[in-house]
């Protein structure tokens, strides 16, 4: 009953966000025209709040990758960790410098510029001699997400190397502390994911990878829920990260595919020959299926985590949207927003675990399919 009520309210609020986000975003994109024509949409004084509050910018600033790790802003004070920009271009070669050289897009550096508008918004572009700006050939910048991955990897190593040490120190003893916390999860992955999906004889080979992706995804999902540094980066909601993870699953599946697996792809037994021979319909479908599996893994994790972040950020946007109408309304809405954010964060905690589980389980099932023997 109460759940139903909450879902109604949630739906209404989501509708509000979309409704509110649409026009404001549009307004932001065309703010130059609006300035030129002199029709101020929000009746705000010129200069200070000429851009107003744009929920879409606010949300995308939080869920997208960046060249620096923004921590807080207060009036004109901005606290952020600048990160190295590593750019290789045909004309200027390899360039490595810190992002704060751009002063948040206010100045160019070494013939590069940080775009704050336009189609390359949020990217470092190269200024050519004729004044045109192009995307450099290779951008290997050590971005916010990369730093977040590094932090999560350090955390993973700290946790699991100490757990491993505990196992070495007390073999055949009851687990304690961190070891005790991780052991049921490790056993769960072994006994309830790997063993039934891959089979008793082959599961051992895949255990290191399955454990690694499970804990990598889970730790990053959880870190993404922490609002401030060193958490808050949207690592598992970044399509590139999920792409690489899915590629690992795809690569391991393909490498370990046995005769039976490839036979099912190229010459599916038990189907009429005419859907295989003149036009190789079955092989084509099977090859598409082979690629769809990791693709779905990539999209699922990315979409779930990003959606969670967008919803939470949407609730926060509501405060500022209403706050622009009247400060009192903003304060009023903030109570509601906070309540829903807490609720969503609880849900996201669950989603963080479920998505790590689903990714691991599906990877294990794909490995199981690749190594299944003919019956």
């Amino acid at each position, binding site marked *: 009953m109460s759940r139903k009520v909450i879902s109604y309210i949630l739906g209404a609020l989501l509708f509000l966000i979309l409704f509110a986000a649409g026009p404001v975003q549009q307004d932001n994109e065309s703010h130059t025209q609006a300035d030129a024509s002199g029709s101020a949409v929000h009746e705000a004084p010129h200069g200070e709040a000429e851009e107003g509050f744009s929920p879409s910018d606010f949300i995308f600033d939080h869920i997208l990758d960046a060249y620096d790790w923004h921590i807080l802003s207060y009036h004109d004070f901005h606290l952020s960790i600048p990160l190295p920009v590593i750019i290789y271009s045909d004309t200027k070669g390899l360039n490595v410098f810190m992002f704060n050289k751009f002063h948040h897009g206010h100045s160019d550096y070494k013939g590069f510029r940080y775009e704050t508008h336009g189609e390359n918004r949020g990217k470092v572009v190269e200024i050519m001699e004729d004044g045109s700006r192009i995307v450099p050939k290779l951008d290997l910048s050590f971005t916010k997400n990369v730093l977040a991955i590094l932090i999560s990897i350090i955390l993973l190593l700290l946790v699991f190397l100490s757990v491993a040490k505990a196992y070495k120190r007390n*073999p055949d003893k009851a687990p304690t502390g961190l070891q005790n916390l991780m052991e049921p999860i490790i056993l769960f992955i072994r006994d309830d994911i790997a063993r039934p999906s891959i089979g008793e004889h082959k599961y051992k080979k895949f255990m290191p990878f399955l454990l690694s992706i499970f804990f990598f995804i889970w730790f990053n999902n959880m870190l993404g829920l922490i609002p401030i540094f060193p958490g808050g980066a949207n690592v598992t909601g970044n399509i590139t990260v999920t*792409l690489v993870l899915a590629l690992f699953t795809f690569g391991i599946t393909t490498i370990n595919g046995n005769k039976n697996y490839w036979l099912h792809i190229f010459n599916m037994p038990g189907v009429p020959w005419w859907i295989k021979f003149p036009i190789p319909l079955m092989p084509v479908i099977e090859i598409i299926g082979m690629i769809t599996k990791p693709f779905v893994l990539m999209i699922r994790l990315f979409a779930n985590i990003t959606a969670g972040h967008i919803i939470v950020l949407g609730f926060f946007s509501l405060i500022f949207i209403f706050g622009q109408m009247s400060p009192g309304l903003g304060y009023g809405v903030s109570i509601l927003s906070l309540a829903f954010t807490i609720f969503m964060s609880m849900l996201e905690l669950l989603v963080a675990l479920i998505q790590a589980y689903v990714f691991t389980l599906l990877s294990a099932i794909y490995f199981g399919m690749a190594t299944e023997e003919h019956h």
Partner: protein
Amino acid sequence: MGLVTPDIGTIFWMLLMFIILLVILKKFAWKPILSALENREKSIENSLRSADRARGEMEQLKADNEKIMAEARLERDNMLKETKQLSDKILSEARIKASEEARLLIEATREVIANEKSSAVDEIRKQVALLSVEIAEKILREKLKDVNQQKELVDKLMKDIKLN
């Protein structure tokens, strides 16, 4: 850095770092953890099995004890029985022996009595013979006091001899 466009820089860093993570975790974390878990499972299984075995041995021992006890009891019973039999036998043998001895004693007594009796009878007979000889002597002396009578007797005896 679009929402759904993969970024080559992130791919590079992610690949590099994730491979390093995989290698380190595999070598220094998962291998010792998984092998320790497996070893522990094995040792638990072994202990359970040995506990089972110990229980079996215990039961065996208990059964053995029971058997030994039963045997001991049986032996004791047998011993008691044997002892009883032996005592009965001894008792009955003693009785038989005693009665035999008594019989022999009685027999010997009887023999002695008989001997005594016969010797007494002999004595009596001897005495009687002596007495009868004395009496006969006395009678003869009485009868043959005079010469006539002696002659008469000699005649008579002579007559008897002639007859013969």
